[in-house]
């Protein structure tokens, strides 16, 4: 056992406060209690080299996390591990208590319906209008009535895209694409929202607007994990919500200090 250091913080929402303990010697970032997403001693290798090593992270329900680190540190890879798009080289990834290694592709697909993902390079079906793209998770789940229902309109209004509902994705600006991606990620009312550099291609005002949307989601009880290298975004978020910051450095995850 190496050196151990504990850091306590409280995560929103109220009534769901979870003690966080960081044990640096084991590279362990842990919330006590059941996690919606758990990584246990996970390593991931790519192209012969180890990109992530000995990662243990547990995302508790209703928590808000940032994942930061330099470009190429493995933020996107870690996020992909968190929704079953990648399998760990070693260790265990559990999504809602199910080990992804024991799941077939269709089972992973069903679990993904409980996890909304906003990708760094937002991908849409360019031949379908924005509203249909936003409703896509409902469509593939066979919930066609909801896909055409008023909830979709409300959601489009919430992200400020009502007037762009009939536009095709290539006609959208960067900020509009990010908001549409966020709307698509949450239309199934998922328990977890994972966002990879959601403000990467937008200006400061738009990034604040997107952050506000994510904070609102967290206040509704969603677990939020945002991968970003934008420290100003993290500082702005911490003014609105109690968020923990995980930093990837030297292939490992650490809980960031008070400077963030």
């Amino acid at each position, binding site marked *: 056992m190496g050196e151990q250091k504990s850091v306590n913080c409280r995560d929103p929402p109220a009534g769901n406060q979870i003690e966080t303990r960081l044990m640096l010697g084991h590279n362990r970032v842990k919330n006590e209690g059941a996690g919606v997403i758990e990584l246990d001693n996970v390593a991931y290798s790519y192209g012969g080299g180890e990109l992530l090593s000995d990662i243990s992270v547990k995302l508790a329900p209703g928590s808000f996390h940032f994942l930061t680190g330099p470009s190429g540190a493995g933020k996107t890879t870690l996020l992909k591990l968190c929704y079953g*798009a*990648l399998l760990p080289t070693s260790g265990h990834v559990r999504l809602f208590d199910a080990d992804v290694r024991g799941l077939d*592709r*269709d089972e992973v*697909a*069903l679990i*993904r*319906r409980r996890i909304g*993902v906003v*990708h760094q390079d937002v*991908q*849409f*079906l*360019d*031949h*379908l209008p924005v509203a*249909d793209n936003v409703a*896509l*998770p409902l*469509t*593939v*789940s*066979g919930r*066609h009535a909801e*896909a055409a229902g008023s909830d979709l309109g409300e959601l489009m209004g919430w992200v400020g895209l009502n007037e762009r509902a009939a536009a095709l994705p290539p006609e959208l600006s960067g900020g509009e694409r990010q908001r549409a991606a966020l709307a*698509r990620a949450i239309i*199934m009312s998922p328990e977890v929202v994972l966002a990879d550099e959601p403000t990467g291609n937008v200006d400061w005002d738009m990034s604040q607007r997107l952050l506000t949307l994510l904070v609102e989601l967290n206040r509704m009880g969603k677990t939020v994990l945002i991968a970003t290298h934008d420290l100003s975004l993290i500082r702005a978020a911490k003014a609105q919500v109690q968020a923990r910051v995980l930093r990837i450095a030297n292939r490992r995850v650490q809980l960031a200090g008070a400077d963030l």
Partner: protein
Amino acid sequence: MAGDRQADRVVPPSGFTAELTLFAAGAMAFLAVFALALSLAAGRLADRWGAELAQTATLRIVAPADQRAEQTRAALAVLQTTPGVAEARALSDAEQAALLAPWFGADLPLDTLPVPRLIEMTTDRGFDPTGLSLRLAAEVPGAVLDDHGRWRAPLVSAANRLRLLGWVVALLIVAAVAAMVTLAANAALAANAQVIAVLRLVGATDSYIANAFVRRFTLRALSGAAVGVIAGLLAVWLMPAGSADAPGLLTGSGFEGAGWLAPLLIPPVSGAVALLATNTAARRALGGLS
């Protein structure tokens, strides 16, 4: 197939590829109609030759001129008491001359030539050519029985082979449709890798993604084959028909009676083949994509 029409929309329209698939399915169905027509016509020909020739036999009286009439009478007497011989009749000189006319001309002096007398027989069930040959050898030494088996067998065999060939061609066409659809589906899946990535990101199962492609290619093969069959049936219908007394493979290669319904099986078979081929290709491709 009747399932999720919405799934159709998630795959972008593929334009030129779709038209090529339709055209190829139509062309294959057109060819399949002709293969089917050939097979059915060959089958009819084999049945007809088999049935007609199996019910007739010829007795040849090869005897010196002064004994020919007597042996002919003796042979007819034997035939009258032979089980399975429905009718027996000696051909007249005029009929024999008519038979030889194509080779020797119409003015053949039959009485100056040692032409054997022919007895034409119609047979039915119970006819035993071996037993009759043995009896004739004892009672009419100049009689030679020909039950047509020697040249009927290769003709019927050839017609049966032609029928088989028609079915083989039809099966090859079905296999070609499967190969064509598989190639087109693979190309479509490769071209839509990003679409598949998006669908997976939002929680689409493999069966949902596969069905989107399967439905599309099945409908293309089905509609293309339907057009091809209609064109093929029209072409067969417009082919010149042979007369009833001169049936031949070329002039009688159309459909008859219920045979006209056989090509209607081609579109559903093409659709089913496309469904299986696309489903297999999609499952394999999706298994290979991360």
